[in-house]
């Protein structure tokens, strides 16, 4: 271990301080970040690989996998389209009230997941605003797929937009204006100029959006009704199995989500390393 600025002796920390910082920082990360992930794997494999695989092939877990994929397959593309549209309006144009729209986009990040799910219960639940109407028309939103999708859309709404808006602002409008002067139409400008410029940042946003969409627990927990095999996503399945003290199955299911998190993290780090210049500089 060495200091970054060896040429600046005044900035050198004492030897003991360097080691204290190293041991303290790494130790804290191991305790709070690495060990939990290792625990998932260890607990999942506690009774061996066959038990692990058997737990994963359970029909309820299979249904939860399908449900998680379905919810993400609807919510992520919609939020992706929203993110691009918002970034076009907010990143390429100046208008009054832009700051207000920006903070509205950020709003879901500062609201408890439980409250994010609950608002849809208040709208579409039996006692909710549209509850009686929905019941008359035999439509189900909460305790069914549409509710899960709505709650997921709410919590993951900011990801793509937040990634693209600062980047498109930074990139300016000169290239697009040149294309316009040369006679290109709106879609042509977007697909041949803007999209190639933002593609890595878009992928980055989609990656984070997807990780959260598949892993969201609080919001979907409130709207799902926990109907086994029907409205359970993977995180909810972990909850159910854990509460039944079926530890191997709970951790086996959790290991799928932990694997998704690790893959997301690797892909994200790769994008940050390889395409740092094409991602927004303002990183959360």
């Amino acid at each position, binding site marked *: 271990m060495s200091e970054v600025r060896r040429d600046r002796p005044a900035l050198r920390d004492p030897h003991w301080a360097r080691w204290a910082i190293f041991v303290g920082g790494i130790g804290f*990360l191991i305790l709070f970040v690495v060990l939990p992930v290792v625990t998932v794997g260890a607990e999942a494999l506690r009774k061996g690989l066959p038990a692990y695989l058997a737990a994963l092939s359970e029909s309820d877990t299979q249904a939860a996998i399908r449900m998680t994929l379905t919810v993400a397959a609807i919510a992520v593309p919609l939020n992706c389209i929203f993110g691009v549209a918002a970034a076009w309006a907010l990143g390429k144009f100046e208008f009054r009230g832009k700051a207000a729209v920006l903070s509205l986009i950020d709003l879901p990040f500062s609201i408890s997941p439980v409250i994010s799910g609950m608002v849809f219960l208040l709208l579409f639940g039996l006692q909710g605003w549209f509850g009686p109407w929905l019941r008359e028309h035999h439509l189900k939103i909460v305790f069914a797929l549409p509710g899960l999708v709505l709650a997921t859309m709410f919590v993951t709404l900011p990801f793509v937009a937040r990634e693209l808006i600062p980047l498109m602002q930074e990139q300016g409008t000169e290239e697009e204006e040149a294309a316009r002067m040369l006679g290109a139409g709106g879609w042509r400008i977007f697909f041949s100029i803007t999209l190639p410029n933002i593609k890595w940042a878009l992928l980055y946003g989609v990656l984070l959006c997807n990780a959260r969409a598949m892993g969201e627990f609080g919001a979907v927990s409130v709207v799902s009704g926990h109907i086994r095999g029907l409205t359970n996503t993977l995180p909810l399945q972990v909850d159910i199995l854990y509460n039944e003290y079926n530890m191997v199955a709970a951790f086996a299911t959790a290991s799928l989500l932990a694997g998704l998190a690790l893959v997301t993290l690797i892909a994200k780090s790769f994008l940050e390393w390889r395409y740092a210049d094409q991602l927004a500089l303002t990183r959360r």
Partner: protein
Amino acid sequence: MTAIQVLLPRRRRTVLPGFAPALGFTLLYLSLIVLIPLSALILKAAQLDAATMWQILSNPRVVAAFRLTFVASAIAAAINCAFGLVIAWLLVRYRFWGRRLVDALVDLPFALPTAVAGVSLSALMAQNGWVGGLFAPFGIEIAYAPPGIVVAMIFVGLPFVVRTVQPVLQDFEPELEEAAATLGADRWLTFLKVTLPALAPALLTGFALAFARAIGEYGSVIFIAGNRPGLTEIVPLLIVIKLEEFDYRGAAVIAVAALLTSFILLVLINLLQRRLGAANRV
């Protein structure tokens, strides 16, 4: 379209097309997914008169949940500030083998689903767990007790502090520290009087973000908390319990109270931060 015409480009005219449809779609989408649902919450809570609201909020179980949630969140955010600074320092100032890996690991709590964090932290911190087992002989309970709640909140909040302090430390002018050194300050005094004040606004932002996240946190906390009413029950869980009892009004009042309290605290932190920022510029 008049609403959108009011919002038309202000600084300079641009030839780019698509402003009106893009903004229109953005606002429509935001209204449908965020604004209308949130206003349903506010309206639900507003249906009740002040006396009933007070009755709901002054219930001992509710008061205990609020106290626990805010105190545990503040402790977790403070611990995250201390260790977040250490980790940011490590990542910015030192070079060592595996630094990139450590840097990536900091974001793991953002990526790991909260339910997974919840079950694994409670297995880790339980009496028979790897870490909980070390404390059990001394009669210290972590899981299913308030310390476990703090542990879960530390987990979810850590990246916020590191990621706000890291860029500020990166851009910090080394000349300032060198000037302090030439004036005879030792390394510790330089840190206390020069570096730390410059990092204070970022630390405060990190604290606020980690704190806000901890207050709303549900998934990772409920598994490790034990959820005993009045003892280890957090506010989001109380909301869920009210919803399961179909007491939507009670849930709405508690939710709005929680949102308002954390909003006010964040505004206060923001004001304090501006003060600090102004003091630094002088």
